[in-house]
C-alpha cells in the first residue's frame, strides 16, 4: 500500500532522517521504501536537505587503516572488480523499472540467446545422461520445457537452467561460475520482460548439477517470466526478499521447441 498524501510522505521521510521514529515504525518505513517509489523520492529530498548539516561537523582525520582496508577490499580482488563492472553496467533492479524492456535486457537477451544456441548440444547431452535417451524421445512436449543460459559479459555462460512444467522440475547445470566465500551466495530470480521481479527461485548450486521440484505457484509464475537473473546475496539469501544488486548473470527463458522444433507438431 502506498502513502497518497504528499505531506505525510515528506513528514515521515523527515522523521526518518532526523531519527524521530521508534524502532517498529522505522522498520515499517524501511519495508515501505521497497515498494513505494514516491516515498523513496521523499526520502531523497529529505536527505538532500538535512544531510547538509554534515558539512558543519569539524574535520576529524580517520585512522589510516580505514583507507588501507577499503583499497584492499576493492582493488586487490580481481573477482570483485568484475562484479563491480557488471553492477556498473547493468544498473540497479531495486529502482522502478520502465514498462518497456530496458536496453541492458535487450543486450543481454541477445547474448543469452546466442549462448543458448551454442550450448544446445551440451544441453541435450547432459539431459541424455541425466534421464536417458528414452526421455528425450518420449518425454513431455517441448512446449512445456524452457531453457536458459545465465551469462555474464565477462565470464560468459555461468549456468544452464532447464524448467519442465510436466515434470514440475527445475534443473540447473553449473558451467563455470566462480565459487563464493562462505558469507555470500548466488541467488536466482524470475523476472518479467520489463525486468520486474516475480519471485526468487532459490540459491544457485556451486556443484555441477542440481534439481528440485517446482510448486504449482512457481509454474504459474513461469508463464509470466521472460528472464532469469542471478545476484550475489549474503549467505542465507537477500534479507529484503528482492535482489540487493543488479544482475551478475542474466539469461532469457526460451521454450525448447524454439531451438529444437518438436517432430510431433
Amino acid at each position: 500500500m502506498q502513502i497518497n498524501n504528499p505531506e505525510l510522505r515528506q513528514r515521515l521521510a523527515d522523521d526518518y532522517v532526523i531519527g524521530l521514529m521508534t524502532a517498529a515504525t522505522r522498520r515499517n518505513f524501511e519495508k515501505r521504501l521497497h515498494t513505494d517509489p514516491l516515498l523513496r523520492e521523499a526520502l531523497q529530498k529529505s536527505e538532500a536537505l538535512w544531510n547538509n548539516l554534515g558539512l558543519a561537523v569539524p574535520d576529524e582525520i580517520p585512522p589510516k587503516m580505514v583507507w588501507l582496508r577499503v583499497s584492499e577490499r576493492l582493488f586487490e580482488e580481481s573477482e570483485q572488480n568484475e562484479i563491480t563492472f557488471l553492477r556498473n553496467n547493468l544498473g540497479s533492479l531495486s529502482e522502478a523499472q520502465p514498462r518497456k524492456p530496458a536496453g541492458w535486457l535487450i543486450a543481454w537477451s541477445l547474448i543469452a540467446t546466442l549462448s543458448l544456441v551454442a550450448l544446445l548440444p551440451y544441453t541435450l547431452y547432459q539431459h541424455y545422461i541425466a534421464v536417458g535417451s528414452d526421455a528425450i524421445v518420449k518425454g513431455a512436449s517441448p512446449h512445456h520445457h524452457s531453457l536458459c543460459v545465465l551469462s555474464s559479459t565477462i565470464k560468459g555462460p555461468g549456468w544452464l537452467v532447464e524448467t519442465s512444467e510436466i515434470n514440475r522440475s527445475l534443473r540447473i547445470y553449473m558451467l563455470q561460475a566462480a565459487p563464493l566465500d562462505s558469507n555470500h551466495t548466488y541467488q536466482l530470480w524470475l523476472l518479467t520482460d520489463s525486468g520486474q521481479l516475480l519471485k526468487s527461485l532459490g540459491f544457485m548450486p556451486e556443484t555441477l548439477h542440481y534439481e528440485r521440484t517446482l510448486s504449482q505457484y512457481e509454474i504459474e509464475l513461469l508463464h509470466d517470466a521472460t528472464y532469469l537473473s542471478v545476484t550475489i546475496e549474503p549467505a542465507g539469501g537477500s534479507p529484503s526478499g528482492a535482489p540487493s544488486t543488479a544482475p551478475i548473470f542474466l539469461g532469457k527463458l526460451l521454450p525448447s521447441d524454439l531451438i529444437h522444433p518438436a517432430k510431433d507438431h
Partner: protein
Amino acid sequence: MLDENKLQQLLFECAEQRQAALSELYTLTSPKLYGVARRLLQSHHQAAKALQEAFVYIWYRAFEYTPDQGRPFAWMTSIVRNQALRLMRLETSQQKRHHSLLGEREVYMRNDRFFDEYQARSNPLLRELQGCLDELEPSQRHAILLSYYYGYSQYEMVNKLKHPVGTLRAWIRRGIKRVRSECDADQ
C-alpha cells in the same frame, strides 16, 4: 570548504571504476564523514568501521548517483549515516555509546547553540539551512540537532532535556516543518 562540483565529478569517475577518483574522494571527504559517524557512534573504532563500509558502498553504487538526488556530500553523508545507524542499533554498541555520550555533555551545554561546529558559514547551502534553524526556538533547535547529530533516541532526549516525550516530539515536528517550509520557499 568542499567543492561540490569536484565531488560530483569524482563520483562520476568512480562510476567509471577509476580507482584514483575514489582515493581523491576519500581524501577530500573522509575527515567530515568520519566526524559525522564518530558523533553518532561515540566510538573511534565503530566510526572507522562505518566509514570503511560506506566507502565500499560508495564505490559500488557511485553509478546510481545523479544530481537530482541532492548534492554529492549530502548523498555520501546519507550512506555514512545509514552505516553508522546500523552499527548504533546493535545492543552492545548502544550500551557503550550511552556511556560515552555522558562525556559529550560539556560540548553541547556550553550555550543554547551548543555546537562548536555550528560555525561553517562558508557554504551557501549550509548557511541557508542554518539560517532556517536559527529561526527556531532554542528548544526546538536543540532537540533536532541532538537527534540528528548524536542519534538521541526519544528516551535519551527525555532524560537529557527533562521534558515529556510528547512535548519533545511536538517541538521537533514543528521545527522540522518550519525549516522545510522556509528552505523550500528559498529554493
